[in-house]
């Protein structure tokens, strides 16, 4: 069975759980106590990933670190529809990669602010927030134009891709780092649409589209 080295409150782990759930894949969660235990820096986990970063996915003999690498792999291997990562469409793949890189930026900014405020990590929260707002500006404007063109998603016209899943977690958790989404209506509409993707799952800090469901 697919095994995920996972931390419940990590947005990067969550994006992998999201896709696994959407694709209906069974997987085993191996909890790595990132906080408060800092077990991602312990020898046992460094043997799995010398970078000490979560998540890591194991599938048969394959061991993959980096959440976006994992999304690329899972979608390419297990999505029969070929829509989450359309390997035959060069332009679209380029676009997806562009937004995966923006999602990396969200990890460095919105997520860093959240770790500083919530878990006392020694990051410059103010600088991280500033960086997050710059990325939110770009994403919100992009989504607004996509809506004008009749599209609900970051890249493909008719179907979400792994770019949506990659950007979603740290956008949705941003308030924990003091990054407000109040001024980003297109982002807010898009996050509501992501929550309605069949197979969508939640994590602590992110609620379903319908409370109590």
């Amino acid at each position, binding site marked *: 069975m697919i095994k995920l080295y996972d931390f419940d409150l990590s947005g990067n782990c969550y994006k992998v759980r999201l896709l696994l759930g959407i694709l209906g894949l069974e997987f085993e969660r191996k909890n790595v*106590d990132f906080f408060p235990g800092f077990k991602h820096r312990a020898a046992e986990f460094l043997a799995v990933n010398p970078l000490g970063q979560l998540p890591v996915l194991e599938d048969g003999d394959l061991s993959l670190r980096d959440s976006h690498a994992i999304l690329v792999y899972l979608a390419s291997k297990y999505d029969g529809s070929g829509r989450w990562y359309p390997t035959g469409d060069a332009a679209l793949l380029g676009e997806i990669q562009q937004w995966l890189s923006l999602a990396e930026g969200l990890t460095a900014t919105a997520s860093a602010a959240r770790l500083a405020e919530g878990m*006392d990590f020694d990051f410059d929260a103010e600088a991280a927030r500033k960086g997050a707002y710059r990325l939110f500006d770009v994403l919100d404007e992009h989504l607004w134009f996509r809506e004008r063109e009749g599209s609900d998603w970051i890249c493909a016209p008719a179907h979400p891709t792994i770019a949506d899943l990659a950007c979603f977690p740290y956008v949705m958790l941003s*308030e924990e780092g003091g990054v407000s989404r109040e001024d980003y209506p297109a982002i807010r509409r898009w996050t509501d649409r992501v929550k309605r993707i069949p197979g969508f799952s939640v994590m602590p800090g992110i609620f379903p589209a319908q*409370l109590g469901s």
Partner: protein
Amino acid sequence: MNTMTQPDPFMLNQWYPIASLQEILPGQPRATKLFGQRISYERNVAGALQVSDGSRALPVLEQYGCLWTSLGEPDELFDVPEYAEPDRRNVNAGSVGVQVSAQRGIENFLDMGHFPYVHTGILGALPHTEVKEYNVEMIRDGREIIATECLFYQPMASTVSTSGADVEYIYRVPHPTCSVLYKSSPMDEKRLDAIALFGQPTGEETFRGHMVLSILDDVNTDDFISYFQLHIFGQDKPILENQMPKRLPLDPRAETPIRADKTSIMYRRWLTGHGVTYGTIPAAA
């Protein structure tokens, strides 16, 4: 937000948790905040804990897996006798920063009404939303609030639960920013698990919640017990951080309570009675 507002005497003269003891490594000084004031602490190579506000040494107490200190002159810290029972698992589940006043955090901790909506499938489930009648009183000459006979249907009450059950809760508030809840143990029907939220007011509108558990669980690892508690608290966090105003209003007309809020009503009245202003919006005289 003015983080340097001076605390009122009742708040000032309390012990506050500032760190989980397991995180303090010998010879590695660390810093945190209390009432907006920078506080440094260190376990020296001889093993002694030292706390300072930069100009003077502050009192030190090691209790319930936490380091406690005070900027005032505190009395004895409240007792949680269960913590000393030898067969319990005492776990520091994590210290989490929250962007709202500590009293808002405590009030949320005391509330059962949100379980089915916020902790769906774990501490509550629709349609089981009713908070049944329970009892609230002051004990120990008004030094502590206690709520008893609280019953709530929970699908997965603890780390060792295997099915849903009506769970009995007792809540204690022995401190303006600390609360201990007791709930029936799935392992032993005669005993209760204790789960504490110890609030460190870092500012008027921010706190760190130190979560300490003293429970009966001979199955799970500390990592999993911590995971479970952080999962629950992670669900509370966005709700707490979206509360407006961020300080707790003490005027009974400011936020309309319902019957299920009896404990909260008593808590707000108790804070008012002690003249608490820090982290609150006091009622106009």
